[in-house]
């Protein structure tokens, strides 16, 4: 099935009598079973007002097409959705929203959910629904937009997305701190993030056989401002061996590598994504004892590669956060929930998809 309009999408879901596997650009990392419902027929940018920082786009539109349009106005998506190691090829905006996918800038500019102004979607009964709108502030009724973001298609199939876009920063630069242990790296990232310099990326690659440990801090903004903030940051870390990358292109390459093209994306084994309290990160990594590790979000996000037969959750035990399996092992994709939270999640899902046809299996 490949609907090209919202109405066709609604008809396809309403008439489905077996589970549907929603598919756009292959962003979903889980094993979803059912007849493929291809969303890439829902195409195109229906509204783009650069002066209002607003874009409305059909859910099956490829991220590359959206970025090309934004490029022409020197704008971008603040949440850096291009950094997602699970996508095979080119994600659709619907998949990105369904996964609430957000890159390094999440710590400063917010997640995908924070850039969403409104959604149109079709629930599990085939009913066409809208929530939110296209304006910057909106508290009219319940916020189903954020409920849908990160729901991975279990509540409805997104048909249209209204996004807040932003002017691309004029300049960027990166400070690299060399040779820090994981614990010290997280501590120093916290110092940077607690400074007034509005760090837009804070990541750490521990020492491995090929290279020494490096901790990265990114500044973006007006040229003069970046210059000033980078020099202030260097002063803050005067006792650490630091290197400045002031060339914007080289700085961009560093962050593209950290986001999803880093070493971990290429490695065999199972890739896990762990969301945690930053100051717990080094201890959690010690528990995991991974083959490869990359810290992002100042320590609040950890990517690890483990052997396929190792259950990261068993090694982690209880902690403030959750672990998502991205690929390479036979464990559930999502961190299991318990107690009243599990009950509420199941009940909300059953309301939106009473027949249980949307993205079942290990979704």
């Amino acid at each position: 099935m490949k609907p090209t309009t919202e109405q066709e999408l609604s008809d396809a879901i309403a008439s489905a009598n077996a589970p549907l596997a929603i598919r756009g650009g292959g962003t979903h990392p889980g094993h979803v079973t059912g007849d493929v419902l291809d969303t890439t027929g829902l195409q195109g940018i229906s509204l783009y007002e650069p002066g209002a920082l607003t874009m409305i786009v059909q859910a099956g539109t490829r991220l590359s097409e959206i970025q090309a349009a934004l490029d022409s106005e020197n704008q971008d998506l603040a949440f850096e959705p291009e950094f997602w190691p699970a996508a095979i090829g080119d994600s659709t905006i619907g998949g990105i929203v369904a996964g609430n996918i957000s890159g390094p800038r999440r710590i400063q500019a917010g997640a995908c959910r924070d850039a969403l102004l409104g959604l149109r979607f079709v629930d599990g009964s085939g009913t066409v629904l809208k929530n939110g709108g296209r304006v910057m502030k909106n508290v009219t009724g319940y916020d189903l937009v954020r409920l849908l973001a990160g729901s991975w298609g279990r509540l409805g199939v997104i048909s249209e997305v209204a996004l807040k876009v932003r002017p691309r920063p004029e300049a960027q630069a990166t400070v690299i701190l060399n040779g820090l242990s994981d614990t010290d790296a997280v501590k120093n990232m916290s110092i940077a993030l607690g400074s007034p310099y509005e760090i837009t990326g804070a990541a750490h690659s521990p020492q491995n056989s090929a290279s020494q440990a490096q901790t990265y801090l990114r500044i973006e903004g007006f040229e003069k401002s970046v210059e000033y903030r980078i020099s202030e940051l260097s002063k803050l870390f005067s006792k650490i061996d630091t290197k400045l990358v002031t060339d914007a292109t080289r700085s961009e390459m560093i962050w593209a590598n950290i986001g999803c093209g880093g070493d971990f994306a290429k490695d065999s084994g199972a890739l896990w994504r762990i969301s945690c309290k930053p100051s717990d990160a080094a201890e959690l990594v010690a528990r995991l004892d991974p083959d490869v590790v990359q810290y992002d979000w100042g320590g609040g996000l950890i990517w690890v590669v483990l052997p396929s037969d190792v259950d990261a959750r068993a090694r982690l035990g209880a902690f403030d956060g959750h672990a998502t399996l991205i690929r390479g092992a036979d464990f559930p994709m999502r961190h299991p929930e318990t107690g009243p939270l599990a009950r509420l999640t199941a009940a909300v899902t059953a309301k939106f998809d009473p027949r249980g046809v949307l993205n079942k299996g290990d979704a």
Partner: protein
Amino acid sequence: MEMPVPDKGVLSRKAQIVARLRTALPADAVIDATAETLAYECDALTAYRCPPMAVVLPRTTQEVSAALSICHEEEVPVVPRASGTSLSGGALPTADCVILGTSRLTDVLETDYDNRFIRVQTGRTNLSVSGAVEENDFFYAPDPSSQLACAIAGNIAMNSGGAHCLKYGVTTNNLMGVTLVLMDGTVVELGGAHLDAGGLDLLGVICGSEGQLGVVTEATLRILRKPEGARPILMGFDSNEIAGACVADIIKAGIMPVAIEFMDRPILELVEDFAKAGYPDCEALLIVEVEGSDDECDAQLARIKDIANRHNPVELREAADEDQAARIWLGRKSAFGAVGRVADYICLDGTIPIAELPNVLTGMRSLSEKYGLKVGNVFHAGDGNLHPLIMFDANKPGDLELCEAMGADILRLCVDLGGCLSGEHGVGVEKRDLMLDQFTHDDLEAQMQVKDVFDPKWLLNPAKVFPLSLTLSRREARQ
């Protein structure tokens, strides 16, 4: 304002219900004397009043849970109330309800600068959250105008914004976790010190649910390091249209001010009479604030001035020092007071795409003529969040109704232009009956089914947000 007929069964069991609440809560935490419940008869939407049956003022999550669990068993409606500053009647009681007040839940539970969050009990006021981290130069970003009085519980219920949310976002963008008590007394933890949800983002739907899904007793809030400095610039223009175009140009140029505030002539005249801020004589006035070091502020203001000059401003005035900065903000901050001094008013909260600014202001002017009521505008222009103040005389029979009818027309205009009914005040009772102007029945049914999950008996704040006709069968199911 239509409200549900009080449940006679509940009213007849008042003594028994209050007695049960007294066994579960400390003696001073349950109020049922008529003279005392009167203090809770309304919130900041003062046109509507109704004393509740009783009030409970718990001090802990456990006490909230005990009180809710009793009300659940007794099938008593519960209206949660934080500081009672809602402009949309979110905390308006019914005669058969128990008000659950958060005013005694004021503790700071944890302050964590390394991980940049604070965990507080939600009766704490917005400003005192920032106050708790100020000595370390941190702050909590959402800053509603009522921040001295309004509490975090209400901010979460309404997903409150403020003047600086253009840069920092509204409550939902700064809320990391909550302790939520469901109507049946169940305590649920959502989110925490980590940044994203592992499963469904239930925290996202709790924020802004107007106290209809549960009572939030504790919250983990993101705190930020204060900027090195901030500086406003004031600019006056010959027309609303020109000021609107200037706003769009600033935003498009990639400058990210923390605030862009807009005032039109009717407001400016009242403000000048009242606050003597020395504003220029003009049709529309903007206040733009930027943040950073001195040099960074200079650089951003230079760009803003360049843009403004292209629109032939009547005046451009930069603040050279703190005192001048305070004078620029003085008029804006006294705007509501300036209006309140000469008239009764209702404050609307519709939001529009910013390109529609001139259209909505023109539309408002003709509605003002049609209804014969004066309207002034003071609002957050950067994000299109309008605050039209419609002035009326509460002592003149029929004037409030006329004012409300005009307000409804203005909000419909906002929706017609691609906007929404409420940008930051919430729906409450005030905009409840306009919801079908913005949403379809199906859209609202999808929202109501979320309440069905969290509060199957529809006991929590049941007469708000949705038109009463749509919720009737759900509310009656329990009676």
